[in-house]
């Protein structure tokens, strides 16, 4: 199995452990990751200019196609944006024309052939929970995990095709494969608040606060994300509000980290220092 790895812009500066753990976890299942110098998925400009957004996303798709590879992406927002670009480029010939001309000037061609897959889909569809279960050496027995799906993979389902938008089970199945127990909680399909960060921080954090207390009430030890921006948002909230004021019990962790711990990557655990979730995950396993 071979993919072009789309890291997304946030990982290098804000969430480097997501890259480290994901590479190790995918490596354990013989997924080859090819590094291409991708650019922005278009997220930063989507509210300001539609063409710029689609062009930025399409350039990445064209780069992957040039290398003859499908894209594996770690971030839900990036996933949604690339999927949207594919969708719009198919639906709107005038837009396709603009993109073709602009990319053509750089020697790139967009064909719409590259598949875009989120890491959760690769793990659940291409590798499968059974294969994962066989590799787990330290099952996270008794660890209660609140999975947080992330909006932009689920919705709009017509565009993203990630799974059932109203009652998805992919993430829970993967949590079980690592030996942990998914809890039922109301926030699993809700927004983390991150898209509003920087524009309306009060509103943004109110979302995160609500989710964290819901996870607490459901008796979760951890909130598990599979998206860079969701993870950064929960960490930001922990840093902004929870510190010193009776920090809520549920910490946030990335699925790659959680799975990595269960696969026995103890050498990487030092990377979890400072990241909430470390103590819980390690002590429970």
């Amino acid at each position, binding site marked *: 199995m071979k993919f072009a790895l789309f890291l997304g812009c946030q990982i290098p500066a*804000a969430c480097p452990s997501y890259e480290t753990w994901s590479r190790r976890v995918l490596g354990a299942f013989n997924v080859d990751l090819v590094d291409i110098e991708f650019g*922005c998925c278009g997220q930063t*400009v989507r*509210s300001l200019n539609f063409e710029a957004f689609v062009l930025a996303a399409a350039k990445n798709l064209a780069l992957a196609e040039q290398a003859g590879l499908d894209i594996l992406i770690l971030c839900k927002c990036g996933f949604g944006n690339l999927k949207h670009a594919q969708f719009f480029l198919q639906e709107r010939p005038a837009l396709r024309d603009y993109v073709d001309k602009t990319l053509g000037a750089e020697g790139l061609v967009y064909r719409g052939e590259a598949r875009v897959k989120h890491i959760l889909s690769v793990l659940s569809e291409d590798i499968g929970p059974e294969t994962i279960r066989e590799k787990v050496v330290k099952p996270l027995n008794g660890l209660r995990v609140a999975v947080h799906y992330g*909006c932009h993979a689920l919705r709009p389902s017509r565009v993203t095709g990630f799974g059932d*938008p109203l009652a998805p089970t992919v993430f829970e199945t993967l949590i079980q494969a690592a030996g942990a127990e998914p809890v039922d909680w109301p926030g699993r399909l809700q927004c983390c608040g991150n*898209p509003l960060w*920087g524009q309306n921080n009060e509103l943004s954090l109110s979302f995160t606060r609500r989710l964290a207390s819901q996870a607490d009430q459901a008796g979760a030890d951890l909130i598990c994300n599979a998206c860079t921006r969701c993870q950064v948002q929960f960490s930001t909230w922990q840093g902004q509000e929870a510190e010193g004021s009776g920090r809520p019990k549920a910490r946030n962790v990335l699925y790659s980290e959680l799975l990595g711990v269960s696969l026995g990557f103890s050498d990487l655990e030092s990377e979890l220092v400072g990241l909430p979730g470390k103590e819980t995950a390690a002590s429970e396993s």
Partner: protein
Amino acid sequence: MLFSVSLYASLAIFLLGAIYRIWTWFTRNVGPPKEGFSAGRRLAAAFRGTLRAVFSRNLVRILKSFLLEALLQVRTLRRDRFRWVMHMLIWVGFILLLLMHALASLVTKEIFSGYESTLNPYLFLRNLFGAMVLAGAVLAWYRRATRKTVRSTTRFIDHGPLILLAVIMVSGFLLEGTKIISYPIFNQMVEDYSGVEDPEELEALKVYWAENYGVVFPRLEAKPDQETLAASREIHEWNCAGCHDRPQWAFLSYAGAKIMKPAALFLSEIRADVWLYYIHFLACFIGLAWLPFSKFFHIISSPLNLMVRSVLDPVRAEPANAATWRAMAFDACTHCGACSEHCSVEAVFTALRNRTILPSEKLTALKRLASNQGLSSQDLRNVQEGAFICSLCRRCTDVCPVGIDLQSLWEIIEEDLRAKGFPEPQVWAREVGASRAASAAAEPLQPDHQAMAALFSGGLSADGFSECFKCSTCTNVCPVTATWDEPARNLDLAPHQIMQALNLGLVDLALSARMLWDCTTCYLCQEHCPTGVPVTEIFFELKNAAYDRWKKVEGPAADRSGVGVEFQTLPRVGVKS
């Protein structure tokens, strides 16, 4: 006379300029004024910091950085071999020329006792080094002409120094070439250095030099026979050979001489060599005087920046030193464009053409901001847009060959502009919408079907909203609406009301609703809409349209700062808390 006057004048300008440039490292403030320190405090802190670094184990890191990053330029080598070859050619060639040729009497003669500029290896090496610089300059020009992003950012500050380098090198080659073919120079050298006095011997020597050294004489006897040649060689070896190797070793100058040969007598008559000599040294002195005011200054500032970087942790360092280091960035930058070539949002620049999206241009704007050079409100809003569109991926910081901590400058610029009354585009657009809505509140609502048609003419989400049958499911599932007890007070319109406004042709009402900018884009509304209205997509299009329209109709942001909506002062996503 002209030589020494211009030398000392350019040296003086160089020294004053360099002092001024270094002074700005301690006086310029990058970022909000609250972090300002007096120049005295910054100088003192820098002095303390330097002492601490030099008299500790950190010295090893400084030396390592100087050797590997400044001299061998491994940071460039790792990223871009072409650029490394190009730059090594220029700088190695130039430094060697400077030491061996320009400073011959101070350096080369002191080290090598038998130094003569007309002898090998110097004769050959001078051409080799010059050829290196020229080749490097041509490669640099080629890079700037052919690479898309660099081409779009190239200005006179980039071409100017390349042109000057080329003028210095080419005038040097031509100077040497005209001297090779020049008979007045020959006569003068015979007079100065040889013992030839007998006219017949002199004629014989001319024969030899015309044949073997390329000198062109006005009148020479017909083709010399073997005997004459043999005799003249003896005279040559006795008088000249000891101090003058064959000019063919100066391969480029000799090629130039060959080309000029048909015009040799004319060039000798007008003393082209003298003119070229003036051009050559004046170009050098212009370069020296211009050095502190051009990108040539990076010869000093970039290695310093790298060495400081090797020991300065901007987070833990004395704040005064961190401030000084930030100000150094402007001079350390060589405008090489590597950051912009690798910029993650380069495609967005292609679409929007706002130059400040690109890191190299953003840094230029930041420099103007920090040195209080007039930037209009329009400029400042552009800079804020550019800073906002930056995805903070830190690639620019990783690829910068001189190790400027660009990403933290971007974070500072946003904060600084916020403080100056220029919030991020989305915050700004939300404010403008709110103020327009407030001022229009008393007026009766007027449908504007023309504006509606224009708004959705791009065939974007078309008129998807016309499918809306007012069930308000979108509003009921919206987590933003659910946050407020009285959504209308905070959002102006709820999602289903925006759809309804569009159906009634109330464009202005829809465009100015704060709901648009507070939408978290979770797509719950769109997913749940029973008739398939692409609610979130329509919101995106309305935001695009509102942003465009506000940019056109609104006065500069500063004129209406403090509009009443408080914008946030916390850093945005990507900043580690």
